[in-house]
């Protein structure tokens, strides 16, 4: 059998299997791929995943078909003769072709990823304190965060602060008087601006179905965006190891209708008013300082606050 026959046969098997796998991947698996389609970012993340999958399946199948073919067709039973002739030469055209194909595929993947990152406003990843790919309305939301009574109306972007601490996420709603709660409730059809920070070690705020993941660093305001598209509940987990109860650091959140969100927020604001008064004013980050056993870098039981900046648990509450 000559060279072309081998290659033609392999190519035929490869093309058939690849098309079948891609069709299955796109139409059967694709719509169910994580993180789902609950938000604009989740939808884009899923789309990007599926497009990479379309490229990856033929690569996997190509190498497997080749290896399977080689193993079955070119095996030698006994001490074999040396292989001579064309097969023993380093075919330059094959080498050049291989390098060209991998280079084009790689550059294509990088270009596509960059495009997706930019058009999707950071794709739900934490962009740090100075985001560069922000959706419309995000800037106004960050300004509104310092007007405690500005509330939220449909069409506006909603700022939400995520505070990581060992071992729970709590959430502050700065435009509703800055109340803090363990519940994460979001309105549907709204741009959400997550401001993620930590009071101690590094955590990572991972709202799985929202397609949002942003590390919670102490002293850093890590901003991530998403736009809710569907009602329902979603899971929040910590995805950066933060100590003993890291595995138990989860809660479920909910996307509700705008009117349900407004009434929930107003009710919670009223219910928590007594405690909200004791919280420090809303700020992007807080310096962990005093604590129940009194303050200090390494707490020693003596009250020694060392910082005059915004302190969670400071003796200067909001009002």
């Amino acid at each position, binding site marked *: 059998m000559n060279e072309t026959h081998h290659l033609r046969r392999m190519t035929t098997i490869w093309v058939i299997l690849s098309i079948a796998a891609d069709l299955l991947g796109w139409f059967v698996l694709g719509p169910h791929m994580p993180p789902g389609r609950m938000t604009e970012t989740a939808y884009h993340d899923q789309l990007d995943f599926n497009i990479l999958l379309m490229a990856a399946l033929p690569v996997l199948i190509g190498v497997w078909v080749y290896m399977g073919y080689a193993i079955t067709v070119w095996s030698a039973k006994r001490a074999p003769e040396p292989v001579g002739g064309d097969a023993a030469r380093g075919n330059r055209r094959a080498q050049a072709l291989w390098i060209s194909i991998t280079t084009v595929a790689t550059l294509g993947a990088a270009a596509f990823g960059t495009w997706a990152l930019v058009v999707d406003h950071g794709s739900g990843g934490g962009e740090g304190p100075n985001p560069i790919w922000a959706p419309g309305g995000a800037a106004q939301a960050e300004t509104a965060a310092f007007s405690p009574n500005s509330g939220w109306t449909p069409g506006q972007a909603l700022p939400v602060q995520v*505070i990581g*601490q*060992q*071992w*729970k996420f*709590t959430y502050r709603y700065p435009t509703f008087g800055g109340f*803090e*709660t*363990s*519940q994460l409730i979001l309105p549907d059809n709204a741009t959400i601006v997550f401001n993620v920070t930590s*009071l*101690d*070690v590094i955590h990572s705020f991972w709202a799985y179905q929202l397609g949002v993941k942003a590390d919670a660093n102490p002293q850093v305001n890590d901003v991530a965006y998403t736009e809710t598209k569907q009602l329902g509940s979603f899971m929040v987990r910590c995805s950066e190891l933060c*100590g*003993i*109860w890291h595995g*138990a*650091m*989860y*809660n479920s959140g909910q996307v509700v209708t705008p009117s349900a969100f407004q009434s929930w927020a107003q009710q919670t604001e009223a219910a*928590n008013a*007594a*405690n909200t008064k*004791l*919280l*420090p004013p809303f700020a992007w980050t807080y310096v*962990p*300082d*005093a*604590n*129940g*056993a*009194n*303050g200090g*870098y*390494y*707490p*020693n*039981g003596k*009250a020694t606050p060392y910082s005059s900046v915004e302190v*969670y*648990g*400071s*003796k200067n*509450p909001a009002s």
Partner: protein
Amino acid sequence: MSKQGRFATVIVLFLVAVGLVVWAVAAFLTPGTPGGEMDFTTTASAGQPVNITVQTVGAIGFGAHPTWVSYLVKDPTTGAWVQDTSWKLPANTVVHMTVYQYDSGGPLRNQEWGQVQGTIGGTATVNGQTVSVVDSNSGGGVGHTFAVPALGLAVPLPGVSNPNICGAGPCHQSSPHNTVSFEFKTPGPGTYSWQCFVPCGLGYLFGNGGPMGTQNYMGGVLDVVR
């Protein structure tokens, strides 16, 4: 050595290795596993509230880390104070919990934990008075909290301002203390972790190392069974 001899030697060495592994697991890895659970399922008849009594001490005073802050639980059968934070509870049952708080307190890092959450009625009783929020910036502040994050339960335990606080556990009623009681309902079967949200591990960065990071001191699990 004969082939059989070598074979036997290998078997013996293998068994020695297995023994070493078992010993290592027993010596370094198992302490604090739920093997030593405090069983509250038999203390009350079905459907009746379960009583749990615990105390918080500034220094446990015994064991491997006598300086560490800790919870102690009262054994429902013997009445002795025991260092055990894994409790077996019946599902869908009201738990009546009494905490004797013997430790000092101060301002909370996050005043969110000064708010009573998830108890029946949304309140707790501190020294006979009903409270829903404790201002940690005044008085003795907050010493510890009892919180089960998965159930949304969190109760602040106000700190003792009397300077003659109990030095080593288990503490007795004669020492200054605050008595906090509250009720909550257990969910369906499963394990739920509970912890303190006051960074009270003295000597560790941000106060969350040591006793805060080790089961059987400031955190444990509720093993809720049918």
